[in-house]
């Protein structure tokens, strides 16, 4: 028996271990600059690419897959190519081969020929690769000095415009109400009229300003776009790439380990601190990290107090009758309901009922411009996750309170305390580590849940995030990005899912790390509580 039981445990551990090894081994190497091979085939064609994997297909022999990048120049618009192993005549690792990371169309693999940078301060002599690096540095400077301030000003104008528009809508709504009301208040009506006219004028001004700024931006962009890198691809064809679109350039074949490590660090930093590009397959995942963490924390804040209250009621106040037993069974079984059902409930109850009511009540004036709370948003998603995880908290709280020996309660009563005082001052402190265990489990579950979010407000690309510098800073009605959903969209919803695969591993790894971090923090907190109480259990 002991062998069977031990075997079961071993099987479970093995499964988990394999999963972790797969995620780690694939996720950790994504940003490591792999060498680029120059492959000559028997028929004379040349390929420049990274070896991805090989497969032995029956009848065709060993096939090797290369990532050749250069998507827009490929005849089939492919990043990847299969090559028969026995057709390969020779391979080598040209030191001069460069990788250009670009804003669009993925990487470019090739060789730098020359730099045409009329607008940039670059020496026109020397090694073209170093020229390119200089040009990129100079380009960055131009971007931050000329383009970014413009972008910020445009953004500011857009904000102002929006604010003015909302004021105008409010005024117009008020006007309509006045017209429909029985008592005609002429004075108020004319005042409103004037107000609205004024707002319209302001909006017109702002609009003009904004258009001017946009024009200015296009001009700057156009002039920056004149700066080109002339590069050669694998076949030796000359291509020109605007330096504007290049993010980074490196020569994987001539980097030492230190250069590779710093490249790796830079990529990880980019991942953690920048928004995504190219349908989430490149760039960073900052908005998704933020969305995930914010969602879980919001859920905890909204639902855990409720769960603790319910658990306290069941554990301390409710008499052990038929009804309570029924409720307890119900609560225990809530955990078994598929999470998508909670998502549907979230849509039906939170979005379509509560959200709708809120919109009707407070945002009626701007409904013509789009819904506010009557639609998916981080608040509704958090509440949906909340009802999904709250049973765990309830059960943990009830259990933690019920296992407290009767003597402890009686000692408190014997000192003349009321039921409430006993609960707050004696029972809850004793139960707190157990309640924390419930929090941890609930949080871990919430952080990994995706299905209900898909119905209640998660999106794959969002123009805005629920937190920004504009009042009231935290915008609970906004949609949000989420790492779990990102995994799904990047893996299955991108046109070029093969090229996106590394990103899937990276995001998965990140999500696992964040879940570990969140529960790790909760566990630390619990252990500190236990230590303070000096309860001698794990």
């Amino acid at each position, binding site marked *: 028996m002991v062998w069977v039981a031990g075997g079961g445990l071993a099987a479970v551990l093995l499964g988990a271990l394999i999963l972790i090894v797969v995620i780690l081994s694939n996720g950790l190497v994504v940003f490591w600059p792999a060498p680029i091979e120059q492959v000559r085939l028997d028929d004379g064609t040349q390929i420049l690419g990274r070896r991805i994997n090989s497969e032995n297909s029956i009848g065709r022999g060993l096939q090797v897959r290369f990532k050749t990048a250069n998507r827009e120049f490929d005849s089939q618009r492919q990043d990847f190519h299969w090559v028969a192993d026995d057709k390969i005549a020779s391979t080598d690792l040209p030191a001069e081969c460069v990788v250009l990371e670009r804003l669009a169309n993925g990487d470019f693999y090739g060789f730098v020929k020359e730099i045409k940078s009329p607008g940039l301060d670059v020496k026109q002599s020397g090694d073209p690769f170093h020229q390119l690096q200089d040009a990129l540095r100079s380009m960055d400077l131009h971007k931050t000095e000329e383009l970014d301030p413009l972008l910020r000003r445009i953004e500011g104008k857009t904000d102002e415009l929006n604010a003015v528009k909302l004021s105008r809508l409010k005024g117009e709504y008020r006007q309509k109400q006045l017209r429909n009301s029985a008592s005609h208040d002429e004075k108020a009506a004319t005042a409103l009229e004037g107000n609205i006219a004024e707002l319209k004028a302001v909006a017109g001004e702002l609009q003009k300003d904004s258009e001017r700024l946009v024009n200015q931006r296009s001009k700057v962009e156009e002039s920056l776009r004149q700066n080109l890198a002339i590069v050669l691809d694998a076949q030796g064809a000359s291509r020109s790439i605007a330096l504007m679109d290049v993010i980074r350039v490196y020569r994987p074949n001539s980097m030492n380990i230190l250069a590779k490590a710093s490249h790796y660090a830079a990529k990880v930093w980019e991942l953690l601190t920048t928004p995504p590009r190219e349908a989430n397959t490149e760039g960073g995942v900052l908005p998704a990290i933020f969305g995930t963490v914010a969602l879980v924390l919001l859920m905890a804040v909204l639902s855990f107090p409720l769960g603790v209250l319910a658990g306290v009621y069941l554990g301390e106040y409710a008499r052990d009758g038929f009804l309570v037993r029924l409720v307890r069974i119900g609560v225990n079984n809530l955990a078994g309901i598929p999470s998508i059902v909670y998502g549907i409930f979230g849509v039906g109850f939170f979005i379509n009922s509560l959200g709708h009511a809120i919109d009707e009540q407070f945002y009626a004036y701007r409904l013509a411009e789009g819904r506010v709370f009557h639609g998916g948003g981080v608040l509704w998603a958090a509440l949906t996750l909340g009802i999904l995880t709250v049973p765990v908290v309830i059960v943990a709280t009830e259990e933690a309170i019920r296992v407290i020996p009767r003597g402890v309660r009686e000692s408190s*009563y014997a000192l003349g305390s009321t039921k409430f005082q006993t609960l707050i001052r*004696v029972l809850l402190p004793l139960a707190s580590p157990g309640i924390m265990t419930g929090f941890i489990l609930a949080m871990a579950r919430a952080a990994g849940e995706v299905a209900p979010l898909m119905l209640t407000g998660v999106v794959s690309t969002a123009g805005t995030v629920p937190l920004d510098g504009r009042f009231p800073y935290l915008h609970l009605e906004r949609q949000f990005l989420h790492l779990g959903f990102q995994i799904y969209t990047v893996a299955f919803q991108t046109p070029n899912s093969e090229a996106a695969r590394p990103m899937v591993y990276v995001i998965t790894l990140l999500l696992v790390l964040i879940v570990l971090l969140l529960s790790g923090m909760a566990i630390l907190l619990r252990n500190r509580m236990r230590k303070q109480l000096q309860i001698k259990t794990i």
Partner: protein
Amino acid sequence: MSEATQPPAILARTIAKVSPTAAAQPVVDVPTPTDTHAQPIVQVKDLCLFYGRSQALKSITIDFPRNQVTALIGPSGCGKSTLLRCLNRMNDLIDDISTTGSILVDGQEILDRGTDVIELRRRVGMVFQKPTPFAKSIYENVAYGLRIAGMRDRRTLDEAVEKSLRRAALWDEVKDRLRQSALGLSGGQHQRLCIARAVAVNPEIILMDEPCSALDPRSTSRVEDLIGELREDFTIIIVTHNMLQAARVSDQTAFLYEGVLIEFRPTQALFTCPAKKETEDYLTGRFG
């Protein structure tokens, strides 16, 4: 007591059948004190208690003298704890219980519905069999009773905590770690902490339900010494299984058997020449 003072008829019959002693009068021979403490502090009269349909106390009548230690002895299940828990209405916490008769504490009926239980429990403290420290610091454990009574003044609290810990003979051991969790103390220290906690609210009576049964012999003797000191200021009623302990610490001893008070006399007298056969059987170890 305002409601029915008689047990249901069916139960009354059962009592008569199972306990022939119920009809006989208990031997009560406690010398009436002659000084100012003339009136007993607790007067129990005709107390019957039912757990559901089973009767645990059968018409108990007993007066506990002031500022003395009274021991309750008897075989397990005879109703010692039940009687003790009546005195501070701790039995209220148990469902499906019914009590008849009368208990006067300081001449005041406490079984009335209108009794302020909170106030009663401040006057009648209790120490339980298993030590039950709260998940708080040592200081907060002792200050608990005062705090819930609304005491906020730091100085008063500090003084009360120190005084109570000294009375419980715990001060020297814990004075340097008052802010640490009480759960880290040893079992014997826990029980003395519980005594300090009960003492801190300055009750008139302290009920102790087998306070030493979970302790090792050394801790037991410390707690016994403590009881000897506390009797100066408090009336102590102690349930014990340990006959030697009863002999050591108490002035009076009451012997209960199957819910009936058999004998209540000065400890010395009860142990040397028991008046009833049941008492003798119990003391000589023939049952219990």
